[in-house]
């Protein structure tokens, strides 16, 4: 090892624009790790497809039944697959100490948290939403219903991930927190599920869906603004336990 320092001692002033570079780096790192561990991404996807495809076999393959229950099945399967993958969100970073360095980086932590959760949504949930049109055909949904379903999932799943990340950040320092996290998060997921499936049911019955979509949009806006602050706070608490 070299014993001469390379960079002289200097005091850093707060620079503008550093947050953007840090946010980009956060996203890049998340995607790089996701790409290196592709099998971890496939797990929730397979889980999602399996639940949806087992319903016709287990309950009834009648097109009439599937058309009615299909949207609910897809929504519940998406919710469960997000819920069960939450536990891993910060787990590795906490274990290898990266979270500590992340919290100590001189950038607004809430913003980094938003970038991080956004990147996670793109790698883990977006593929799932992209699969929905195929599953919609399988469940005999009408094209219009499938479209509304995709729309509600696009608005609803980011809320699930953002809110879930608060719980994941809070429980990351606890051992065996899997069940605890699921129990904490489920009540918060129920409203999203109700309005998500509500919109699709309304579309099936030919009613207006704008009300439901507006509510989902309001939840999304609130989550985007407030959840990163809560995630940042929760991460600081978890790191201080370490």
């Amino acid at each position, binding site marked *: 090892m*070299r*014993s001469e320092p*390379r960079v002289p001692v200097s005091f850093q002033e707060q620079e503008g624009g550093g947050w953007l570079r840090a946010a980009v780096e956060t996203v890049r*790192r998340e995607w790089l*790790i996701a790409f290196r561990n592709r099998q971890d991404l496939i797990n929730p996807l397979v889980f999602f497809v399996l639940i949806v495809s087992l319903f016709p076999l287990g309950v009834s393959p009648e097109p009439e039944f599937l058309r009615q229950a299909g949207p609910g099945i897809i929504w519940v399967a998406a919710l469960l697959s997000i819920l069960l993958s939450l536990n891993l969100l910060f787990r590795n970073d906490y*274990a290898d100490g*990266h979270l500590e*360095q992340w919290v100590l980086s*001189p950038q607004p932590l809430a913003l980094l948290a938003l970038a991080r959760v956004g990147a996670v949504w793109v790698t883990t949930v977006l593929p799932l939403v992209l699969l929905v049109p195929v599953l919609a055909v399988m469940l005999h949904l009408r094209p219009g219903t499938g479209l509304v379903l995709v729309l509600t999932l696009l608005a609803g799943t980011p809320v699930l991930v953002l809110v879930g990340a608060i719980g994941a950040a809070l429980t990351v320092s606890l051992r065996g927190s899997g069940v605890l996290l699921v129990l904490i998060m489920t009540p918060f997921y129920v409203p999203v599920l109700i309005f998500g499936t509500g919109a699709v049911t309304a579309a099936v019955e030919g009613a207006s869906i704008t009300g439901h979509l507006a509510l989902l949009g309001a939840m999304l806006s609130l989550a985007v603004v407030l959840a990163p602050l809560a995630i940042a706070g929760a991460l600081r608490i978890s790191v201080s336990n370490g």
Partner: protein
Amino acid sequence: MTSTLLEARQIHCERDDRPLFSGLDFRVGSGELWRIAGPNGAGKTTLLRILAGLNPAFEGELLWQGEPVHRVRTQYQANLLFLGHSAGVSSSLTAYENLAGWQAMRTPAVPEQVMAALADAGLGGYEDLPAAQLSAGQQRRVALARLYLSSAPLWILDEAFTAVDREAVAQLEALLANRVRAGGAVILTTHHSLALEGVRVLTLGEGHDAL
């Protein structure tokens, strides 16, 4: 000549209803090397985490250049390098990606500098191997390579030399000595015996029964 960087006033910390340390007063100035000593369980790591701003569960005041740390947190973190027990080296990223990523969170990462820092840390030729394939000592060197990229006036190193070989420890000590001479401040804990001049020692756990 030396200016005070970090000042601790009456730091008191308890764990499980048992006081770890109390009434700690010290000023770390530029050009000073501090070693926190004490037996296992004396609270060395806890103290370093408090100083790094990671652990808010303490009483007393912590000042960075005269300002409370919690009020100038971003500025403090921009001027601090903290290396903890777990170094924050991700096993699925290569040595280069780990170091460049760490740097980009602080200042723009220049690829040549990152490569040079890895070579300085004795990792020349290992830059593109996933950290999972490196030995424990090499992984530690990935973390230690940050020292060559950091301009931070204050370094807090918690058992930073674990797993690296004796020769590297000697060179790291020389690096710290040079750093201190250049006006940096270093606070560290180590189980190695430090062969350095002018080390200020803060011993924790005195007055308590050996734990």
